[in-house]
């Protein structure tokens, strides 16, 4: 059995940021990821990020990821790739599978930064080749530099659907339309404006009825919906497309937190069931922390700040950080988080976050 001080599951923005903070404080950190490369979804975010200078605004996600990875390496984080965490045991032991071997990793603290997965959408033809998640498209075009098709229908006008559509145009595909069943565009208006200038129609109040084709997608049938979301008969149209991208939301990937026995809460604004945690990202189980989309769907800049908070708290609990220094750093993280959760796009998330915090039992009571 291997031992480490802080084990982090998931080397995306939250896990990397947690690893950097904890290792810089002097903790021994092992960061585990099932993928061949670290970075999670961050290295395929080729667009410039929003936020303030403290959030690296105006810098492309991929560059923010590279900087974070090099900080983690410099701080001495052990990064174990191609390694699946298949289980978590009560004595803070993780079950790892790597190269068809399994081994245990015991830690004083564990941070779960497992991210999210894409929601599917079922309709006739949805299992055909050519129907894929927007995130999968983004991986193909930005990591593997492969166009999955030439003519794309994107389902979902949230930020993911809008950003991936723009990146498909950059990759040389044609985006025939972006549709959304809602009456308005869910993503940032500026992301919508970019694809509109590039000639892509955005059809709100539209849904997909079917994907059709012989062996793979050749056409998609869409229709206008009424105010209750039902397709209006006679308002169908058929589009010649070979890819249907699904950008219909994400769900927190929280299996390990369930397995560990964490308290959960259902928070629709944040994507469904999320592990209850306190302001310092500790779950209902002492020494088990969460950060990033597993705590509720937001975005990469927030995931990084949550990771920093979890890394600082875990390192402080181990005695690596003097508490005064830790408290100052945590106040800074809190301020950066608050700055990202204001305005008409952030208010609902800020309120939902407060609801999660209200469910968390103060640490003194829990330990007593």
């Amino acid at each position, binding site marked *: 059995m291997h031992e480490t001080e802080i084990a982090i599951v998931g080397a995306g923005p939250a896990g990397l940021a947690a690893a950097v903070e904890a290792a810089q404080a002097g903790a021994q950190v092992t960061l585990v990821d099932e993928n061949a490369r670290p970075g999670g979804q961050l290295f395929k975010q080729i667009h410039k990020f929003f936020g*303030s200078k403290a959030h690296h605004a105006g810098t492309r996600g991929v560059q923010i990821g590279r900087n974070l990875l090099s900080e983690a390496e410099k701080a001495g984080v052990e990064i174990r790739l191609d390694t699946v965490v298949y289980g978590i045991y009560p004595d803070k032991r993780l079950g790892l599978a790597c190269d068809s071997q399994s081994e245990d990793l015991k830690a004083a603290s564990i941070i779960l930064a497992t991210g999210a997965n894409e929601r599917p959408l079922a309709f006739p033809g949805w299992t055909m080749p050519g129907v894929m998640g927007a995130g999968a498209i983004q991986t193909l075009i930005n990591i593997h530099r492969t166009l999955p098709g030439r003519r794309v229908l994107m389902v979902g006008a949230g930020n993911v659907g809008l950003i991936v559509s723009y990146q498909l145009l*950059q990759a040389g595909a*044609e985006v025939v339309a972006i549709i959304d069943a809602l009456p*308005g565009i869910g993503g940032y208006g500026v992301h919508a*404006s970019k694809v*509109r200038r590039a*000639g892509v*129609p955005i059809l709100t109040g539209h849904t997909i009825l079917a994907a059709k084709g012989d062996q793979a997608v050749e056409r998609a049938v869409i229709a206008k919906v009424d105010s209750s979301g039902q397709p209006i008969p006679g308002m169908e149209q058929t589009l010649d497309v070979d890819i249907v991208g699904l950008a219909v939301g994400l769900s927190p990937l929280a299996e390990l937190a369930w397995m560990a026995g964490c308290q959960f809460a259902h928070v629709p604004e944040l994507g469904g069931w999320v592990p209850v945690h306190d302001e310092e990202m500790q779950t209902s189980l002492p020494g088990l922390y969460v950060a990033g989309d597993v705590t509720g769907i937001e975005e990469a800049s927030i995931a990084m700040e949550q990771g920093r908070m979890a890394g600082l708290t875990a390192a402080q609990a181990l005695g690596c950080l003097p508490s005064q220094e830790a408290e100052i750093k945590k106040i800074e993280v809190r301020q950066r988080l608050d*700055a990202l959760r204001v305005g008409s796009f*952030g208010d609902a998330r800020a309120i939902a976050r407060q609801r999660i915090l209200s469910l968390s039992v103060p640490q003194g009571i829990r330990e007593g």
Partner: protein
Amino acid sequence: MESMQEGVLTTGIPSQAELEASPGYPSAAALARGPIVVIECVQDIPCNPCELVCPNNAIHIGEPITNLPVFLADECDACSQCIPICPGQAIFRVDMTYAEEQAAVSFPYEFLPMPEAGNVVQAVNRAGEVLCDAEVLRVQQPRSFDLTAVITVAVPKNLAMEVRSMVRLPRPWSQGQRAGGL
């Protein structure tokens, strides 16, 4: 095909009313004096790199960073550094004094192949509709712009506040056609 409703969250295109209500959108009088940037940021998203990059303190956001940028046209020397750093690609540059009949419009651009100065391209409005042919005057892409080029085209003056991009050029290595239309 467009919804009857206007506005950036319905159509993806900021309406004239939204633009004019934004404190980043300069007055016609300021535009008439010479080249300045035009900030088409109409939503309270948390973002402020334009404020920090401006060497002339012509853009003010303050706290919280969801405030819309307030643009002080008199302080702007049209250096254009805010154009490529805006993650929303919502900042443009307009020079109404470029020539007798023509204005110069600059916009951020991230599609290959890049146009070159002297090319004639098809200028489009905020809906991606072709408005006119336009000569490319400049293509700026220094390293500090981090791969977002700023393209400047000459257009008739009456289209200066409409032209905001150009039709993507054909990719010689693929058969891709221009996106658009159903």
